[in-house]
């Protein structure tokens, strides 16, 4: 079965399609009917539920992005009214952050693969896992309700006293949505931490775990410790709105900045909740397609933990000009510089993983390259913002918009797509169409840069964010950006279509099409409900390609 690759520039090794069959028994056909999905406790099925729902919300968020860009095609406020525009970017931000990017990799790929990667049968608390999906859906429903009832226009940051006293839109509905979705995220994180501590297979020591597990572990810590602070901040906003308690109201002696402190205490770590799991995906992909263990495994593992730890110390860099004391601004700026270092370590370690490797360029690898380039730009422009004096000019402009789209879309979304393509054969048992997917990776890369590079220039010119209308001299760059967004939209819609297509027509993948080392690749695709027929014993490190070569066929632990 593990015959030598036929072709010298690919490692793809799939069974002979004339004889290959999908495994008779797997987690997908284990039970039938809608109810078997809605009441499942199987982490793999819950992952699929999540995958479907976050894709749905991604396209909702994307539709708002389309509307934003359409409005900004011309300097005049001509497409929609100001209030409507404000609702657009608020909805875009809330949906993309809380309903798409935060759960994206952890709740789908993490949910599916963390137990398998550490040799467990399931997450520690399968029912809580299901509960967290229901909470997520409830949060999503509230968001949609806020949208249908007339929208919210607070911006995703809910700045007080604007959100508490000056808006009469559905702030409380949206706040409820975030509160509930927050608990979904807490439970996911809690489940991961317990699973990683308690459920590892014999021999699976911490430093034998794949880096994907490490980075999700770090992100989980942030979810568990950060999210409750957001929850209480949101509760106080709701109370302030309903009964006017005054803790954030300057006319009653409250401090509106207190809300910012509480909000960013979560929301800065949240950006690392968003990026860390993506970094984990990149480690897996780079290693697999260069057939080499990750350069400096321990450094990469610890840098995830370092990012999580330091991530808690820098939140006030979102408030540099908002009236925090200048002394504390100094401290937070310094710490921001420190938190940037572990990311740099990762980037260089990945680059050196390629060295002396044997590299092939399948789609996940292309997305990973896109990640490295775009995240480097996004991250380094983050350093601009962390630098106090520079931030004065750049804050609240399109420069920030460009910064965070570079890290979130260019970074995390690309990593998510890398991961989806990488594990698609394992999750579904089918290959995606390779050349089409390469084309769409390229399309989104180009479209992305056309969309967001001009925004850096716009930002330095001073174009404020959340502006419905803008001076005419900014139009050319905005037109470019809108044009790019169209290309980008195509680039992101294509995968949806061909992945759906591949469910039925894709080539049958076999167990280990990439010849990767992870435990998840040693079991059948799609996996059995119980993952492993027998508890695996781990006696080698992650990314041990020599072990893979010497492994004999009968050591594959599950046959369908």
């Amino acid at each position, binding site marked *: 079965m593990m015959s030598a690759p036929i072709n010298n520039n690919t490692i793809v090794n799939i069974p002979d399609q004339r004889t290959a069959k999908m495994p008779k028994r797997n987690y997908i056909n284990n039970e039938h009917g809608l109810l078997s999905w809605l009441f499942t406790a199987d982490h793999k099925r819950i992952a699929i539920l999540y995958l479907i729902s976050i894709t749905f919300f991604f396209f909702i968020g994307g539709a708002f992005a389309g509307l934003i860009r359409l409005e900004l095609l011309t300097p005049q406020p001509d497409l929609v009214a100001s209030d409507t525009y404000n609702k657009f970017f608020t909805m875009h931000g809330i949906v993309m952050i809380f309903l798409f990017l935060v759960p994206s990799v952890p709740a789908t790929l993490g949910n599916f693969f963390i137990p398998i990667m550490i040799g*467990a*049968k*399931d997450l*520690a*608390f*399968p029912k*809580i896992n299901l509960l967290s999906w229901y909470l997520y859906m409830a949060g999503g429903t509230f968001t949609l309700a806020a949208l249908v009832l007339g929208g919210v226009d607070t911006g995703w940051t809910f700045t007080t006293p604007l959100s508490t006293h000056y808006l009469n839109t559905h702030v409380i509905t949206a706040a409820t949505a975030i509160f509930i979705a927050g608990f979904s995220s*807490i439970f996911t994180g*809690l*489940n991961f*931490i*317990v699973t990683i*501590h*308690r*459920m590892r297979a*014999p021999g699976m020591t911490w430093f034998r775990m794949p880096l994907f597990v490490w980075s999700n572990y770090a992100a989980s810590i942030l979810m*568990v*410790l*950060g*999210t*409750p*602070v957001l*929850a*209480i*901040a949101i509760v*106080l906003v709701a*109370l302030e709105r309903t*009964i*006017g*308690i*005054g*803790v954030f109201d300057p006319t*009653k*002696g*409250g*401090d509106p900045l*207190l809300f910012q402190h*509480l909000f960013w205490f979560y929301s800065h770590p949240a950006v690392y909740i968003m990026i860390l799991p993506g970094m984990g995906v990149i480690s897996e992909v780079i290693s697999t397609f260069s057939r080499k263990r990750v350069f400096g495994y321990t450094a990469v593992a610890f840098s995830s933990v370092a990012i999580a730890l330091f991530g808690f110390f820098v939140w006030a860099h979102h408030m540099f000009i908002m009236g925090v004391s200048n002394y504390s601004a100094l401290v937070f700026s310094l710490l921001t510089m420190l938190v940037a270092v572990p990311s740099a370590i990762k980037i260089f370690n990945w680059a050196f993983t390629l060295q002396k490797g044997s590299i092939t360029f399948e789609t996940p690898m292309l997305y990973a390259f896109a990640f490295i380039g775009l995240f480097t730009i996004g991250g380094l422009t983050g350093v601009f913002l962390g630098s106090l004096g520079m931030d004065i000019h750049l804050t609240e402009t399109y420069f920030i918009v460009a910064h965070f789209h570079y890290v979130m879309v260019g970074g995390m979304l690309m990593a998510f797509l890398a991961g989806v393509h990488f594990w698609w054969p394992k999750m579904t048992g089918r290959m995606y169409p390779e050349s089409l997917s390469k084309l769409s990776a390229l399309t989104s890369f180009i479209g992305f840069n056309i969309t967001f590079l001009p925004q850096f220039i716009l930002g330095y010119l001073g174009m404020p964010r959340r502006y419905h209308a803008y001076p005419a001299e900014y139009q050319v760059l905005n037109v470019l950006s809108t044009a790019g967004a169209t290309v980008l939209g195509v680039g992101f819609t294509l995968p949806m279509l061909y992945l759906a297509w591949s469910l039925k027509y894709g080539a049958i993948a076999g167990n280990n099409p990439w010849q990767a080392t992870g*435990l998840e690749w*040693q079991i059948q695709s799609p996996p059995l409900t*119980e993952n492993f*027929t*027998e*508890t*695996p*014993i*781990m*006696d*080698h490190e992650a990314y*041990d390609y*020599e*072990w893979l070569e*010497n*492994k*004999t066929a009968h*050591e*594959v*632990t599950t046959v369908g």
Partner: protein
Amino acid sequence: MANAIATAHEHDAHHAHDEHVVLPQHLHHFETEEQQREAGTFGMWLFLLTEIMFFGGMFFAYLLYRNWYNPAFVAASNQLSVKLGAINTAILITSGYAMALGVYAAEVRKKQMLVWTLIATTIFGFAFLGVKTVEYKEKFEKHHVPGASFDVKEFVNPAAFGLKEEPLAPDMAQKTQIFFVLYFAMTGMHALHMIIGLALLFWLIYRANRGDFSSGYVAPIENFGLYWHFVDIVWIFLFPLLYLINKHVG
């Protein structure tokens, strides 16, 4: 490297030297019951971490405004009854004690004792809420509930109400509202946790009476105990912060 992903051939054997009987509550995805129990405890502790941070936000708000508006906090705090607060502290500690005994009872598989300690826990829990209701009612009558009906007359002119306090300047008196906001937010959130706990207690009593926890399966009791003690701890801090430390101006 020879015996790569080998399989655990002793997989079934290890139950043999395990002194526990296989409980019906053992979930299939755990290797052992011990693993299951420890996972549960750890999960509960992580959940309590999130609770710490949840209350943490309010504790910080309290700390900040107490520093800013110290005289208002002192005056407002003196409106609370130390006596009721102290009684309630004792009640809650007693309830926690009953709960701790309950955990012991479950561990040594004494069904009757378990049921009775749980019932005691519940009764003291309700007693706490009862006292709290009395206190809330008084606040309501005195117009100390933040909102439209909030009134600062007692703080501006304490002598007229037979209070020995120093009068507050009107601008400072207005800030007593912030104290009461935090008072209600914190004790209210605490009471909410108690109510959730009491609801769970009913269910646990029902199950204990059915004998679910008499065979060595004690995880739910232990984990609920952790939750209940955590709620205690929150109160242990709320009591001095709200009732006591403002008795004398710092």
